[in-house]
């Protein structure tokens, strides 16, 4: 039974990969990597709440568009886009604190607490934006001052054919550097006294209480950092895609979770630095898999061909997460049986 499932999963994987190689243009590849990096901080945020703290939190669904809303509103009203970033982090952190307070003070399960916060954030995001969508074309974003020169640079070196890729490549360089920087700070933080205590809290909360530290405080600090990162991710992503939308956060928690599970399953990290790398790469892989899935055309009996479209992304994501979880489960059972 187990082998049949394995064979099926591997078969599907190979099929998708072959299709991917054949069909995807370079443009789609770089686009997927770029958006993977754009969402990488969400993966890190989900890693903090689900893995480090062991306190499942869905607030990122609200804090990601919160960051986007703040950045877009500030930029449209003519403020410096770089000032928008720390403000987005603070606002997201505050959203995390609200969830943490609901769950620690009122003893409501963190999942429910975060759904409540996310619901409230929907209104708040609408209030911040004033409408459901803010376009950022021809505004002063963090992208704008460099992108023109970068495009010229790419065209002189790679020819006009690479011109289409300029935005994606620029995003990979720019956001990649930023993500790397934050990853290094994250790794350092997780090894400090406070970071160690947060990890121990997820592992064994009784021990943390026995050693004189407040578990509530750990949850508050942890969720603040987690949602601060998600909000920052939203603020950056909105500027690269050129608009903020009230619905851009819907389901992003599943993308983050998919990235965490994918990264952990493939790389099996042993240290915290390896784990943060795995999770970031997991997000890039997730975007690649989604891009690949979108290029798949399923031939049905009777000559019917079903093309996978954007409307299928959610189903594809759910299948991916379940598939990876199934592999993890089977692998675990196998190692126990040995």
């Amino acid at each position: 039974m187990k082998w049949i499932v394995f064979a099926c999963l591997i078969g599907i994987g190979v099929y998708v990969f072959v299709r991917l190689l054949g069909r995807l243009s370079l443009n789609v590849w770089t686009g997927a990597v770029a958006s993977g990096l754009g969402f990488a901080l969400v993966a890190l945020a989900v890693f903090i709440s689900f893995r480090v703290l062991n306190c499942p939190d869905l607030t990122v669904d609200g804090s990601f568009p919160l960051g986007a809303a703040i950045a877009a509103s500030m930029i449209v009203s003519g403020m410096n886009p770089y000032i928008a970033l720390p403000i987005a982090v603070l606002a997201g952190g505050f959203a995390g604190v609200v969830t943490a307070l609901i769950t620690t003070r009122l003893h409501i399960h963190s999942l429910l607490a975060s759904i409540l916060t996310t619901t409230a954030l929907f209104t708040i995001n609408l209030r911040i934006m004033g409408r459901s969508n803010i376009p950022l074309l021809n505004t002063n974003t963090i992208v704008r001052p460099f992108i023109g020169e970068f495009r010229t640079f790419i065209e002189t070196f790679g020819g006009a054919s690479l011109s289409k890729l300029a935005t994606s490549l620029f995003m990979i360089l720019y956001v990649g550097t930023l993500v790397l920087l934050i990853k290094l700070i994250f790794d350092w933080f997780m090894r400090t006294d406070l970071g160690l205590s947060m990890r121990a809290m997820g592992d064994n909360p009784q021990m943390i209480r026995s050693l004189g530290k407040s578990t509530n405080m750990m949850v508050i600090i942890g969720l603040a950092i987690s949602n601060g990162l998600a909000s920052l991710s939203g603020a950056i992503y909105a500027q690269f895609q050129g608009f903020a939308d009230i619905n851009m956060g819907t389901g992003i928690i599943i993308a983050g979770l998919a990235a965490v599970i994918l990264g952990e399953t493939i790389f099996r990290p042993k240290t915290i630095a390896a784990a943060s790398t795995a999770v970031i790469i997991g997000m890039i892989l997730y975007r690649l898999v989604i891009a690949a899935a979108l290029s798949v055309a399923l031939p049905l009996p009777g000559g019917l061909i079903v093309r996978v479209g954007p409307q299928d992304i959610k189903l594809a994501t759910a299948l991916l997460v379940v598939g990876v979880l199934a592999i993890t489960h089977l692998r675990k059972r196998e190692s126990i049986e040995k």
Partner: protein
Amino acid sequence: MLRLLGLSKTFYHGTTNAVSALRDIDLHLPAGQFTVLIGSNGAGKTTLFNVISGVFPPTSGRIYIDGVDVTGWPEYRRATLVGRVFQDPLLGTAASMTIAENLSLAMLRNHRFKLRPGVTSDRKQEYVGFLEPLGLGLEDRLDEPVSLLSGGQRQAMTLLMASLGGPKIMLLDEHTAALDPATVTRILEMTHRTVRENQLTTLMITHNMQQALDYGERTLMMDDGNIILDLNFDQKAEMSVMDLVDKFGEVRRKPLFEDDLLLNA
């Protein structure tokens, strides 16, 4: 060092299901005293521990540690003064983290958080000094996760960690009950040494009457929420396990029939 005044705990207080787990307990443990607490199941031993360590508040009465009234302190704050070891070896250490990281956490007991590396080479040197006397070879495995250790090794780690960071009081709740006989002796010897070296005021729960007579300077026996027997060092030196059982019957006017207690003797 530890003073309990009129300590009572009633579960489901004010309902028809009310259960009195502690009845008006007065107890004073002088600094540095190693006291062993015995009693049958349901006597209130663990309730007493939980009230002292702040897991739940007492129904009435006050708790003083080192002259400070800590009755209203939450559990985590109480833990700055109280080191604890539980029966379950899994409860005292973080399995996914390394030995060095676990020790670093224990060192934080009376410190505020600082954003500095938790494990440094200086600190590791210090930990080697802590671990070598245990004779378990753990000093060579500082960077291994605790999940690779045996139950006995984890309990030894927990005991060490409970004594680090300057607690005033040590509470041991049947901390050898889940271990094999050879390891029990080793852990008890280590307990004796740790308590002596750190001058810790210690209260140890055990189900084993022989242990209660062999270790510590004072033996308390609890039954039905009361302390029914309080033996000092000289008194307990003269006693055998059977004497202890007889004494129980004498005080409570009922025989002590608990296979567990007798078999362990």
